[in-house]
């Protein structure tokens, strides 16, 4: 058993902007070697949390440690250790690709020039090209190169697929698997599209209204979050149903989305008049049930 610290540890983190409470007590741990999907609607506070992790923003309360380092105490220590790709990263457009790589390399004691050269090759980036002339996909590949070439053990990617076409997106996900998972790095990957990051994630956390409302392995979400179709029942019993996420009425039936199908079926057995039908959900439907689900009895 090694004693290396948890890559990312967040405890009861709070942040307000004016009267707006963006983070209202966020707690989570990112396990070493995992590809961790950090999900939330646009504006949910994903970037705010990431900026706090990197010491770019001060929290109002709570604590976080990145590879055991508190960014409030040693922000530079965090930033030289971690690979970071910002959302909509802007770079010096007047520089050439090779110049930018050379310039960034000086900030990192652990920079690996041979790795940078090989990544540039694999990512088909031309050293003489002006950074400002790169396509969106090429820009994001360059940002990923800059985040990886100092061989970080922990990599934070803030919505890296935003605005990419399907091919550039697939290439980026392929690099995350081929370059990072392959050597056991930890990847913290934020996105607002669950289906897009699901195939590459081990585990996902959903940030909603300032809190983590679910944090689980992807397979567990698939196994436990289901839709159950039943004949309408006494509305007063609904609040007793464990893990209810959403209720819809359709064609004289109720469709209940629950986060623990076993417990919900057990609770339904004595009240339901017919054998309920259980349906599998895709991850967008699961995400939707968590963030915009209605938990009250439908008017039918």
């Amino acid at each position: 058993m090694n004693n290396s610290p948890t890559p990312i540890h967040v405890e009861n983190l709070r942040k307000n902007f004016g009267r707006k409470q963006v983070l209202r007590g966020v707690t989570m741990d990112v396990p070493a070697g995992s590809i961790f999907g950090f999900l939330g609607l646009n504006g949910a506070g994903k970037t705010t949390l990431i900026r706090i992790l990197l010491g770019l923003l001060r929290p109002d309360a709570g604590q976080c440690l990145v590879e055991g380092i508190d960014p409030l105490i040693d922000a530079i220590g965090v930033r030289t250790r971690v690979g970071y790709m910002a959302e909509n990263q802007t770079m010096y457009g007047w520089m050439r690709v090779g110049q930018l790589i050379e310039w960034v390399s000086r900030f990192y004691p652990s920079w690996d020039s041979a790795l940078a050269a090989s990544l540039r090759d694999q990512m088909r980036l031309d050293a003489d090209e002006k950074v400002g002339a790169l396509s969106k996909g090429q820009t994001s590949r360059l940002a990923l190169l800059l985040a990886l070439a100092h061989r970080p053990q922990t990599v934070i990617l803030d919505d890296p697929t935003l605005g990419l076409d399907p091919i550039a997106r697939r290439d980026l996900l392929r690099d995350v698997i081929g370059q990072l998972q392959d050597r056991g790095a930890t990847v913290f990957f934020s996105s607002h599209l669950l289906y897009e990051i699901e195939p590459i994630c081990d585990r996902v956390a959903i940030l909603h209204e300032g809190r983590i409302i679910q944090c689980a392995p992807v397979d567990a979400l698939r196994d436990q979050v289901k839709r159950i179709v039943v004949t309408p029942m006494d509305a007063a019993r609904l609040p007793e149903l464990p893990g209810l996420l959403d209720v819809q009425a359709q064609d004289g039936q109720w469709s209940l989305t629950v986060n623990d199908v076993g417990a919900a079926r057990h609770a339904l057995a004595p009240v339901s008049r017919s054998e309920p039908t259980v349906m599998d959900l895709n991850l967008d439907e699961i995400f939707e049930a968590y963030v915009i689900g209605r938990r009250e009895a439908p008017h039918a």
Partner: protein
Amino acid sequence: MFIRLEPSSAVPVYRQIVDQIKYQVAAGMLRSGDRLPSVRELARRLPVNQNTVLKAYELLTHEGLLSRRQGDGTFVTNTPSVLKKSERLRKVSATLAQAAAQAVHFEISADELHQLLNEEINRVAAGGRSDE
């Protein structure tokens, strides 16, 4: 080996990989002794998490369809199936239930469905290579 994932499916990714490898073995597109891509290689190609590919390979190994030899790779075995007949019937009947429901929904008659099924059986028996 060609695997195609349906990203918005309600079927989990590892299950999609398992089903497609099974289909390719059944259809003769993969034959006993064929070597599968390594976990790392298939994960990078798709791209999906390496643990997802690992889970699919482990499941197929457990069911006897694949054998994994340390340091050598993953191969298609020559035992047709180690599952009990009742288990095999249950799996096929679950798939047929979906097809039947879809046929009713799209107003395909029972005769037409039987004919389609026969055509598919013949195609698989012929080696499944007609559409390649």
